[in-house]
C-alpha cells in the first residue's frame, strides 16, 4: 500500500506520514530530498520503517549543508517495533528483517528549529517541542 498523508496539530504543524512502499521505490538521493523538502518547510516526517545507516548519514550531511538562519538541521529518531526478549524471538526477528528489510518500526524526522529534542527509549519516543 502506497500512502502519504498529512495532518496538523492546532492548525500549526503538519505531520507527513510516508509509507515504506512509497519510499522503497525511490533511490537514496531521492528519498533524502523528499524528506528534507518537507522538513525544511517546518513540518515533521513520519516514516514507516527505517532508513539505511548510510542514508541516515547522507540525510545528516544534506541537512547540514542546508543550514541557514531559518533551518538549523534535523532531529531524527527511530523506534523499533520488535524487541527480542528471548532467543526464539531474536531468531524470528532476524528472519523477518531478512524478509521485510527495514520495514519494521517508525522513524521521526523533524526540523530542529521546532523540535528541541527527541528522547529515545527502546520502547518509546518522546518529542519535546521548543
Amino acid at each position, binding site marked *: 500500500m502506497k500512502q502519504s498523508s498529512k495532518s496538523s496539530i492546532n492548525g500549526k504543524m503538519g505531520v507527513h506520514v510516508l509509507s515504506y512502499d512509497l519510499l522503497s521505490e525511490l533511490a537514496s538521493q531521492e528519498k533524502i530530498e523528499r524528506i528534507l523538502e518537507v522538513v525544511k518547510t517546518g513540518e515533521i516526517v513520519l516514516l514507516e520503517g527505517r532508513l*539505511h545507516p548510510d542514508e541516515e548519514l547522507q540525510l545528516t550531511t544534506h541537512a547540514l549543508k542546508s543550514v541557514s538562519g531559518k533551518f538549523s538541521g534535523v*532531529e531524527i529518531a527511530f523506534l523499533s517495533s520488535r524487541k527480542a526478549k528471548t532467543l526464539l524471538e531474536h531468531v524470528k526477528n532476524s528472519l523477518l528483517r531478512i524478509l521485510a528489510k527495514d520495514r519494521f518500526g517508525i522513524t521521526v524526522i523533524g526540523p530542529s528549529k521546532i523540535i528541541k529534542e*527527541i528522547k529515545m527509549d527502546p520502547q518509546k519516543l518522546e518529542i519535546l517541542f521548543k
Partner: protein
Amino acid sequence: MIKSLSRGFAHFFSLFSRKKKVSLGLYGPPNAGKSTIANRILKDILGEDVEEFSVSALEHETREVQKVEKLVMKRKGKELDFSLIDTPGIATKIDYEDFVKKGLKKAEAKERAKEATQGVIESIKWLDNVDAVLVVLDSTQNPYTQVNITLIGNLVAKKKKLIIVANKTDLKQSNLDKIKLVFPDYALVPVSAKTGEGMEVLYETIFKEFY
C-alpha cells in the same frame, strides 16, 4: 591479476610481521572528550605534555579533522604504527543561537556554527579514510541516541573495527551499565581522559582489537 597477486603476497607476509599500520579515528558526539583522549594518547606515547588538540567546555571546539602521523605504540614485542585522527563531533543540527545562549556574540556564534557545520560534514567524509575507530561517548549522558546508533551502524556497515570508549568515569553521574545495555556487542573500555584512569586498559584493547 598482477595487482591481486601482489596484494596476496603483501597479506601473506603481513601475517608474520610484528608491525602493523593503522589509521585510528576518534569519533562520537560533541563534547564527549575525543580531543582530551587524543591529547592523553599523545602524552602517553611522546612522554611529554602536549596540547595538540584544542579542548573546551563549549560544544564544537574541534571544527576540523586533525591528524597526527607516525605514532608508535609497543606491547609485548608487537609494534603498532598509527596515525591519530581527531574529528569534530557528529551532530544532526547546529544552531548559532545555541552558542549565543552560551555567551558568544552573534557574529562569533554564526561563524562558529558555520565552521562546526563544515566540520561535521568533513568528519562524516573521513569515515572512509580510517581503518579503526574509537567511538568516544560521555558516560554521564544517555547513550541511546540516534547519532550514536547511526554512527555505530555505519561503522559496522563499512566493516570498520571499533572500540567504545566510555569517557568521564571520574564523574558521579557516569553510568557504564546503560552503555553496556545499549551496545552489548562491542568492546567497551571505561576511561577518564582527565585523570588517565583506564588508559592502559584502552591501549591493551587497541592491540587486542586492532592489531
